[in-house]
């Protein structure tokens, strides 16, 4: 029988293909339509913190320097009220083998693939993760295929993504480049089926366990230097795995009072699957186009149950503009002597603003940095934006309209992280959980799951459910 390769036929067997390619039977953790045993899944299919530390140590991943950004702190204090202006730190994750924290996430997946006899790994990503997987696979002697969304229908590619393709190829990976569209998943599935390779998904328990060491290290770094945990850790948020893994690591270290803040670049108004919008944005990750939908509905990824569930851990979520992140990227180079980013500096821009609201004796940690270079740097990205009709100028960054302009702050005092209404996001998540699973009544187990998954009190949850006219109670 001929293998039917139509879009519908391939999508219909996604479950079957994925089960083989990830090696996890997600059914095992299912607790009805809505709930599943999240911690059980993390324990049984992931690796313990100690195992991950050993895996990463053997391949030179992790134990990155924690740097204090003294000049940026001094700058923030120029604009902060009396007594305010927390000390700002950065975990220099660019020091990892592939130049970003994603090496942590890839290390466990690739290790797992090798251990289970897979010949190669596949990752669907336009970001640093592809290079991380390729780098780890090179160490373990596995083949890598990276599938990227890279070009618009004119064949014009985002310079940042083209650079990432080069980096993947530098580690010996095959890179499949596609035009805009969610059917990247179709190519991903057919390639998995053809090769029998491991799906090095960003959203398996392996990947998230790989990030836990980052949170754990931050806590240990702080205890060694200051005898206490940091007051806040801020994570650039896209698919939610960075924040989830870091927060879990902090919790495993016992840093229960550290505030977990998510930060994304505001790209509201731009459609992520739009061919026209694709090259009108200057950030390909760390933005609201991923941050919002993945937080309010995590199970939209390439695995049935995502291990990245940011609402479980997020205490606060803030947005910054493209212009603010570019400005702060230049600031990091000019006054701290660190050329990094730009996308990874999203949380840095937010930290600069939030530090001004925190006490002088407090600390805030930007938990990642990433490598920079041709294509992936504010210089080519601003140049590319101008070529695509985006107006770049100095002014008030809060007036920036994504896709139309990039407003570099006229003065650093104008960098202001804008707080997102987290309750509204939680409500949206509950609505999705109820509607997408088509349930009219929730039992006690499901109620508990939703409370944990959105970090809600019982009162807040029941209030949302009443509004949604969903019944609850009973077994």
């Amino acid at each position: 029988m001929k293998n039917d390769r139509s879009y519908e036929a391939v999508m219909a067997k996604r479950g079957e293909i994925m089960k083989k390619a990830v090696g996890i039977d997600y059914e095992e953790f299912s607790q009805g339509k809505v709930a599943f045993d999240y911690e059980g899944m993390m324990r049984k299919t992931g690796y313990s913190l100690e195992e991950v530390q050993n895996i990463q140590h053997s391949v030179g991943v992790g134990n990155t320097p924690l740097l204090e950004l003294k000049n940026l702190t001094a700058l923030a204090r120029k604009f902060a009220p009396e007594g305010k202006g927390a000390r700002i730190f950065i975990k220099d994750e660019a020091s990892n083998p592939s130049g970003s924290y994603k090496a942590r996430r890839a290390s466990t997946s690739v290790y797992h693939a090798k251990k289970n006899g897979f010949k190669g790994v596949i990752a669907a990503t336009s970001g640093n993760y592809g290079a991380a997987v390729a780098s780890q696979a090179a160490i373990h002697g596995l083949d890598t295929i990276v599938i990227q969304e890279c070009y618009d229908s004119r064949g014009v590619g985002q310079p940042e993504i083209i650079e990432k393709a080069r980096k993947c190829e530098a580690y010996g990976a095959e890179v499949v480049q596609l035009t805009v569209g969610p059917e990247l998943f179709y190519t991903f599935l057919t390639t998995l089926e053809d090769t029998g390779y491991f799906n090095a998904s960003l959203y398996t328990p392996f990947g998230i366990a790989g990030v836990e060491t980052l949170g754990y290290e931050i806590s240990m770094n702080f205890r060694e230097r200051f005898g206490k945990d940091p007051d806040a850790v801020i994570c650039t948020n896209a698919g939610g795995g960075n924040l989830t893994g870091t927060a879990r690591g902090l919790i495993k270290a016992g840093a229960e009072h550290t505030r977990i803040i998510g930060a994304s670049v505001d790209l509201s108004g731009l459609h992520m699957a739009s061919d026209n919008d694709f090259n009108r944005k200057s950030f390909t990750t760390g933005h609201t186009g991923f941050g919002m939908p993945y937080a309010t509905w995590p199970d939209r990824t390439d695995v049935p149950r995502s291990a990245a569930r940011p609402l479980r851990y997020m205490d606060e979520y803030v947005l910054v503009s493209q212009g603010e992140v570019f400005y702060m990227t230049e600031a990091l180079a000019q006054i701290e002597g660190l050329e990094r980013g730009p996308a990874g500096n999203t949380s840095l821009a937010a930290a600069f603003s939030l530090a001004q609201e925190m006490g002088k004796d407090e600390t805030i940690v930007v938990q990642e940095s990433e490598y920079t270079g041709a294509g992936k740097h504010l210089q080519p990205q601003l140049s590319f934006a101008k070529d695509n009709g985006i107006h770049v100028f100095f002014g008030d960054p809060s007036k920036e309209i994504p896709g139309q302009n990039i407003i570099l702050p006229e003065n650093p005092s104008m960098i202001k992280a804008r707080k997102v209404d987290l309750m509204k996001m939680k409500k949206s998540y509950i609505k999705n959980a109820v509607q997408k699973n088509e349930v009219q009544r929730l039992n006690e187990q499901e109620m508990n799951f939703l409370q944990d998954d959105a970090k809600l009190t019982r009162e807040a949850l029941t209030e949302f459910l009443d509004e949604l006219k969903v019944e609850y109670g009973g077994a």
Partner: protein
Amino acid sequence: MSLVEKGSWVRIYDVVLEKKDRSPNLPEDTKNVPLEMWNKGFLLEDANIGDYVKVKTLTDRVVAGKLIEINPTYSHSFGKFVPEILTIGKQLKEILRGGESSEE
């Protein structure tokens, strides 16, 4: 047209899904264009630019597509110079050296 020799490192192009075969849930502009693909590999038979060929990729997969480039080059760069960036460092240093605000 000059022949491209078997074994050459080349770039190929193909259409993965025609417009009519794409996902039903797409914005209008994306719906109106096909899903296209680029890949690279070693050419399996002598061919001309524009021919539909087969290549062996870096992971030894055989992939087919239209031959479009020999020894494909990375052309991404630092772009055209953006002079606006120059002013940022100067401004920051001025503020830090005490130009603005009164603290300490």
